[in-house]
């Protein structure tokens, strides 16, 4: 290696260079989130299509079960999160979040870090799912009448944890099925079983919180799932980006 190359190598690894790369990374992540949310708000797939259907699904169970209020109270949290997982997955694998090949090429040649793209898309999906959950929770409370005195702070953290987990999971699955002809069918089939740990943690946690009991153990489980999905997504983002091209 020549002295010039050595110098260039050292320059590449200098703290200032690393700081620039970090800033670039977070700037790219932020612009991907902005783009995803802007596209979604204009297309309206989540709030205007999935949310009304999800609310209808919540409404149908009490109609089918009749006036057994004790049963409704018991199944309320489970119904809420089942609906969020099922409809939420269609939000995270929404067609507008899957880029066309020319756009993917453009993003690659723009120097978009695949990890920044993954985090940006996951962040946008998590934000959409959080809003989605906030819209549906009052519907569930009105229709299923769970016991009063809930721990609102705990419910909020559960909603955040679940939204992050489902956002990461949906983005990861969408990246896995990119380029496949049957991706729209494959994505929910792959993601819903993988969402089982999230569903277990968040349903049990919500039951506790609605009954005024702490849900620390379930919050920790959600945090662990979030972390595992984050690590998997960060590690797989670049290889998936290359192999699905």
């Amino acid at each position, binding site marked *: 290696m020549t002295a010039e190359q050595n110098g260039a190598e050292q320059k590449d690894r200098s703290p200032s260079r690393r700081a620039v790369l970090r800033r670039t990374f977070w700037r790219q992540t932020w612009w991907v989130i902005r783009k995803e949310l802007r596209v979604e708000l204009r297309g309206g797939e989540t709030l205007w299509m999935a949310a009304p259907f999800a609310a209808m699904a919540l409404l149908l169970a009490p109609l089918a079960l009749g006036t057994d209020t004790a049963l409704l109270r018991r199944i309320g949290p489970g119904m809420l999160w089942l609906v969020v997982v099922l409809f939420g997955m269609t939000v995270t694998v929404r067609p507008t979040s899957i880029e066309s090949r*020319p756009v993917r090429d*453009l993003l690659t*040649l723009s120097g978009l870090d695949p990890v920044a793209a993954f985090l940006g898309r996951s962040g946008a999906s998590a934000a959409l799912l959080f809003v989605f959950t906030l819209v549906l929770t009052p519907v569930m409370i009105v229709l299923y009448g769970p016991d009063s005195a809930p721990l609102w702070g705990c419910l909020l953290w559960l909603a955040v944890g679940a939204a992050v987990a489902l956002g990461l999971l949906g983005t990861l699955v969408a990246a896995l099925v990119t380029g496949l002809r049957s991706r729209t069918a494959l994505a929910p089939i792959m993601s819903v079983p993988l969402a089982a740990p999230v569903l277990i943690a968040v349903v049990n946690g919500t039951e506790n919180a609605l009954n005024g009991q702490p849900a620390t153990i379930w919050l920790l489980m959600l945090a662990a799932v979030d972390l595992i999905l984050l690590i998997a997504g960060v590690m797989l983002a670049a290889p998936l980006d290359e192999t699905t091209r």
Partner: protein
Amino acid sequence: MASHPLVRFEDAGYAAAGTLILRGVNLTIEPGDILGVSGPNGAGKTTLLRLTATLHRPTSGVCSVLDADADTRPEELAAVRRKIAMVGHFPAVWPELTLRENVELVSRLRGDPPSEDPLRTVGLEALERWKASRASLGMKRRVEFARLLTWTPRLLLLDEPHAGLDAAAAPLVDEVVGRVAANGGAAVLVSHDPGRVTPLITRRILVSAGEVSEEIR
């Protein structure tokens, strides 16, 4: 002294899904080259362009682009890719974003410094709030050229550059290609219509049935 080639193919080939698309490609592209690529449909022109853009890796032989090859680390490859621009056959736009947002997003992701309004240069200033889904093919192509006005790539790859552009917009191709060559870069222009690109190019190759041959001009 011979200049260092920007692109070097050595007996390179590319196969996908068991089909050999390109074979035995030997080609160098030097700084200042403006290479015309012609050939019939399905000959492998777009694949050659994608290999040159590092979007595909050769399945045999060597393909070195701006000194990046199969052994290049991902972070170094990303840096090389930032020096390459490609305008493909289909416009790369987000339909839900406005024409201005389509230009701005790529500029922000690249981290380019603010420049003169490129939409004004391509004649789309008045339509900047139009969603790309409303825009015609020609407008989308102008958006793609507007992006190229905010920076100068080292390697410019254009697939059917004049497609969809009217006579008033056609000089955009000349401008971006000329700027790249003047800055020591190179351009590759794929076209079914050699007559449109002949005034621009310095060399021409023919791609036929997966094989590349240099044409003597």
